[in-house]
């Protein structure tokens, strides 16, 4: 069993309380590893280390190219050990072997590489449009790191979320304290071990798993932290905004979603049907970007639902560690009960359960919680199952008569993280994509994002954008510098105003 201590100031240390916790393997319920549990005191130590590295350490003053070089060295080491990280992600977070090896780990590494390279060529200085009133001056804008970043990430994609938070923060010269989720801390701690082998100065990256009300609160309330980046649930996002208001920290949030997926009548169903299941069932739907509401044209509804059901029933659900598994377990019993509650609610409110809706107990390890890929038909967009994020393998199919109705219903949600359109005619799909109130919209695709492109939410799905130059700017303060051109006192504008 893997065991990890806290990573603070370049050292691996025990929690002040001595507390440790076993993190369960979602496939079996057996322990996947043991980590030290940081408390408020440990978090304060981590902030002290990060503050020292930001105020006195070499990192912020290094050239972006040198920071990038150190990060690319880490990328090479992480790439060499990608299969080990995939193994950890499978054991700790229940990513199927195929998902962690083919997708989540190598994809996450690519975010690290791209953002490390982007940081080296990013324009930290910007021109300002000449503006001669009331006097001429030389002027420009410089981008500077905030200082210390606090980041908190959820349990669903632990390694990828760490790789979305760390690179943009540190390549721009900040230091960071990362709190991974206690359910799935192992890949972040293994990442700390790799970073400790590099030239990264102590205190630039600190990783402290801990409980939200103690360690998490200590991180987001501390006045020595300048910015907080969070991915997780909407209500925790609100809580963090309030807790971070003491010293008016900059806050960026990536929160919930209820992605609308609009199937047009000219869609290539051979791609759109499996694509819609990929949108819903990847990682058993435990993904905020999931497309969980499928809008199907009334004329094709019967054909679409029949095909969806046939394909969903062909999926093999089993241990994440089994190469044959298309889908793995859900996180734990709490998660299972929540999914099951919504399946009950859906039936109570009149939706038609087309397939799934039960726990799987045959052919799977006993201690894990496995749920059948589930599809509801006859769903009204006003139903509970169409409005709340279930965070499980449950697809709601909603009939539409006109494309206008589909767009209206698609946008009738408090969320706005993702959306999608399937059509053979891209210009037609594009016109609809432009009307969806969502931060990321796919045409004939789902889930795939680029480290060069912005990702984030409209409405209650969040604040700010990650990745690309938009993402780097989230970790940079903006400074305007103005140099007077006049050389004599009587040329000065203010000389006349104040009569000096």
């Amino acid at each position, binding site marked *: 069993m893997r065991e990890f201590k806290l990573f603070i100031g370049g050292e691996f240390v025990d929690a002040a309380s001595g507390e440790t*916790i*076993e*993190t*369960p393997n979602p496939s079996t319920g057996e322990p996947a590893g043991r980590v030290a549990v940081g408390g408020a005191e440990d978090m304060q130590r981590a902030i002290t280390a990060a503050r020292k590295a930001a105020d006195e350490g070499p990192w912020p003053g290094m050239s972006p190219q040198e920071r990038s070089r150190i990060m690319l060295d880490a990328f090479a080491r992480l790439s060499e050990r990608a299969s080990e990280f995939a193994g950890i992600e499978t054991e700790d977070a229940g990513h199927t072997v195929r998902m962690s090896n083919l997708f989540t780990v190598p994809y996450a590494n690519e975010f690290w590489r791209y953002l490390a390279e982007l940081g080296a060529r990013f324009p930290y200085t910007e021109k300002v449009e000449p503006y001669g009133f009331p006097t001429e001056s030389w002027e420009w804008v410089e981008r500077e790191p905030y200082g210390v970043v606090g980041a908190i990430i*959820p*349990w*669903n994609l632990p390694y990828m979320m760490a790789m979305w938070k760390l690179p943009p923060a540190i390549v721009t010269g900040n230091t960071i304290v990362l709190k991974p*989720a*206690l*359910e799935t801390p192992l890949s972040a701690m293994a990442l700390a071990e790799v970073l400790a082998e590099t030239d990264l100065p102590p205190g630039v990256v600190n990783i402290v798993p801990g*409980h*939200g*009300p*103690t360690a*998490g*609160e200590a991180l987001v309330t501390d006045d020595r932290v300048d910015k907080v980046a969070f*991915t*997780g*649930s*909407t*209500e*925790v996002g*609100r*809580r*963090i905004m*309030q807790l971070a208001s003491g010293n008016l920290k900059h806050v960026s949030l990536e*929160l*919930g*979603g209820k992605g609308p997926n609009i199937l047009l009548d000219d869609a290539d169903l051979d791609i759109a049907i499996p694509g819609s299941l990929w949108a819903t069932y990847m990682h058993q739907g*435990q993904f*905020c970007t999931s497309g969980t509401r499928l809008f199907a044209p009334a004329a094709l509804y019967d054909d679409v639902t029949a095909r969806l059901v046939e394909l969903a029933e062909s999926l093999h659900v089993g241990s994440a560690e089994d190469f044959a598994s298309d889908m793995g377990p859900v996180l*734990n*019993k*709490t*998660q299972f*009960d*929540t*999914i099951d*509650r*919504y399946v*009950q*609610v859906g039936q*109570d409110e009149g939706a038609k359960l087309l397939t799934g809706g039960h726990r799987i107990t045959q052919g799977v390890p006993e201690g894990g919680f496995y749920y059948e890929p589930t599809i509801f038909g006859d769903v009204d967009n*006003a139903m*509970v199952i169409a*409005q*709340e*994020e*279930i*965070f*499980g393998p449950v697809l709601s199919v909603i009939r539409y008569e006109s494309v206008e109705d589909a767009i209206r219903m698609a946008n009738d949600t*408090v*969320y706005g993280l993702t959306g999608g359109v399937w059509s053979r005619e891209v210009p037609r799909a594009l016109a609809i994509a432009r009307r969806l109130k969502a931060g990321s919209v796919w045409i004939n695709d789902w889930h795939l994002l680029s480290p060069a492109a912005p990702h984030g939410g409209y409405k*209650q*799905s969040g604040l700010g954008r990650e990745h690309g130059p938009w993402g780097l700017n989230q970790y940079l303060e903006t400074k305007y510098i103005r140099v007077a051109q006049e050389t004599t006192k009587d040329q000065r504008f203010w000389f006349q105003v104040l009569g000096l």
Partner: protein
Amino acid sequence: MRVTATQRAEAAVREVEASGRTDLVMVLGTGCCDSTAPFLYDRGYYPGPDAVAVGDVAGVTVFAHGWLARLYADGGLVVDVDEGVVADSFSLETEQGRRFTLRLPGRG
């Protein structure tokens, strides 16, 4: 929307109170990894201008955001608690190794 609570959920709220947390507020939060779940916060957490009171647990008011309360109309939910779980959230009971959950009335 009407929210009630199991006795063990009420006991868990009292235990958070006994740990020294004051001015408790419960709110049904939504989205991402917690799905829709109860969040117990302290120091008079302000759930937002749209929040409405939908019940109470051990004397602590439970709020829901307006859209969520309207979604359930007259329907009910029960606050329960899962014991002995690794649950990372800002909700205060989680540091005691438990997590508040929602159940349907009469469905255990």
